[in-house]
């Protein structure tokens, strides 16, 4: 990693340069919630000023840039009594500006599954390799708990990461692409003062966390407490609406659907974002459902997130952004569910 410092004025010039040459996405306000708080999403931007880089966190995660909610995997073209399969991985290059640390770490977790795991996904790799990511630190929201998950610091998975030092940014440059682009603007080597300020800023961020979640014992506890009554308690609240999984930056489970075009001349094989909390996720041919109850489905999401699955060496995949908790109508959130789970055993001792 190479470190540089850039003034905010130069940074704007740099980003505008990228925007002018590439499809670029950045945080923009799309709505105002009833409590007056702005709602942000990553949207296409045409100039630096359209972005709101002091945003809190985007409403939906960045996941869908890499794992679109719906994506055609292949097409079949039918001829008289035959067919041909057609597969394409072409993706246009794009830039995403202002990505939070937790979202970058979430992508690293997806990389473990779709790039580093067995059967790397060409669809994911095509999107990932064609995306230029500029990360940006921020002060946590009240309910963020990425520090508890150890996902506060980014080490990889981005091109450029900016730490806010007031009138300038401290840049961590993590790719030759970024380094080359930065040659177009003025950057300086960090001075001792910059380094100190950088550390101060890091410490400020750490001190600002108000929510901690203890997940260290969860891999075992989730096994031990598989039949705990707390799942029924939270399961009864769950709407099985899949919102948590759709906004989550790491929920990647999917389904595959095929449909024949109306012309009967071709068909599409599509991957669509699914969720274990949704009713038909574990349903099999003939109608049997391996997870017929609300609690079994909700529990499964927690199991995946905090126990981990074999595919990425049983690593927990939650990054602590709390999008699921914030967006759950029923008020189900990791902090309360996990505290409940821990409390249950502590009370009994």
């Amino acid at each position: 990693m190479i470190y540089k410092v850039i003034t905010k004025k130069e940074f704007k010039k740099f980003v505008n340069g990228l925007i002018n040459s590439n499809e670029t996405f950045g945080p923009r306000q799309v709505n105002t919630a009833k409590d007056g708080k702005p709602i942000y999403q990553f949207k296409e931007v045409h100039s630096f000023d359209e972005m709101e880089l002091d945003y809190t966190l985007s409403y939906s995660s960045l996941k869908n840039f890499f794992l679109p909610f719906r994506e055609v995997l292949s097409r079949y073209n039918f001829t008289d009594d035959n067919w041909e399969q057609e597969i394409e991985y072409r993706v246009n290059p794009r830039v995403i500006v202002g990505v939070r640390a937790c979202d970058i770490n979430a992508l690293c977790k997806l990389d473990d599954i779709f790039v580093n795991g067995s059967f790397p996904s060409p669809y994911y790799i095509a999107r990932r390799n064609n995306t230029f990511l500029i990360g940006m630190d921020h002060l946590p929201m009240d309910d963020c708990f990425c520090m508890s998950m150890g996902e506060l610091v980014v080490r990889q998975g981005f091109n450029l990461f900016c730490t806010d030092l007031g009138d300038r940014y401290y840049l961590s440059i993590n790719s030759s692409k970024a380094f080359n682009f930065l040659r177009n603007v003025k950057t300086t080597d960090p001075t001792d003062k910059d380094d100190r300020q950088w550390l101060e800023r890091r410490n400020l961020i750490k001190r600002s966390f108000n929510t901690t979640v203890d997940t260290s014992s969860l891999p075992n506890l989730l096994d031990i407490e598989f039949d705990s009554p707390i799942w029924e308690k939270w399961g009864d609240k769950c709407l099985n609406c899949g919102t948590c999984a759709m906004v989550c930056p790491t929920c990647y489970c999917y389904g595959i659907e095929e449909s024949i075009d109306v012309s009967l001349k071709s068909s599409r094989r599509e991957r669509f974002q699914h969720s274990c909390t949704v009713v038909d996720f574990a349903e099999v041919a003939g109608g049997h459902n391996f997870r017929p109850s609300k609690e079994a489905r909700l529990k499964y999401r927690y199991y995946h997130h905090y126990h981990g699955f074999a595919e990425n060496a049983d690593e927990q995949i939650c990054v602590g952004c709390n999008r699921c908790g914030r967006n759950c109508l029923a008020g189900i959130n990791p902090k309360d569910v996990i505290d409940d789970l821990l409390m249950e055993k502590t009370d009994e001792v």
Partner: protein
Amino acid sequence: MKYKLPKEDINLKPFMSKPPRYNWKDVIMRTDKTYKCEIINIIELTPMEKLFHLKILDPVERDIFSFRPGQFLMLEVPGFGEVPISISSSSNNKEYIALCIRKAGRVTDILHKAKKGAKVGIRGPFGTSFPMEEMIGHNILLIAGGLGLAPLRAPLYWISEHRDEYEDVSLLYGTKDPPSMLFTYEYAEWEKVNHIDLLTIVDQGDDGWTGRTGLITELFKEMTIDPDNTFAIVCGPPIMFKFVCNYLDSIRLPMNRMFVSLERRMHCGMGKCCRCMVGSTFTCVDGPVFDYWSVMNLKEAI
């Protein structure tokens, strides 16, 4: 002897017989490309089950496709969808792949309507397989319920082709009634040519039925199993293998010598979509063949 550690011989693992492919690490594949096959034969086994013979059309792909007993493939019917099916033919058969398919959903329904000569796609093979090499020199107990006989046909072929390497081989097969019995036309061959002890039983007999009736566990009364020298392979509905494995456990057959094949609805076959998860384990990558110890440790398996 009771506390002697068994020797695990890595040389017996299937991958050891192949030359190493050092340059194949982390290759990106076209993971959704199917091998085009022609259905060259359709055999109606019961009103619900048909046996399909598939021939891979491209000679290069036909050469690449090799599988081990117990593995499954994803069968694609373009436009309708993809289903996981365990392979029911000999792993030595380079001419065609046999798939025994029950009519159970959108894809299998349309497949049952398909005619000879139809073109379908396959991806695979995927998943783990039965430990054919490790079982050499031992007795083998094959236990199947209902459609569970389909995945056992591949190891049956393997055993027949290497019959002298194995000791006593028994096949215990139970179905709900006589018409549901699969592959009845092959029983005589299995018994007489391949020297496999075949014991069948049905839950409910009919007028013509002269064989045994009752649950599959009844068959254990007719035989003695040497727990120190036997491997068991169990395929069938979860409730069946629970009872069967409990019995085998009670006679002290070690759990790591009991193998079951789990059934879930795989969508990708590659450990990505999480549709076939059992606990924290992928049926498609870590299974479908598990030893019973692993199954016991999986949440939601039974």
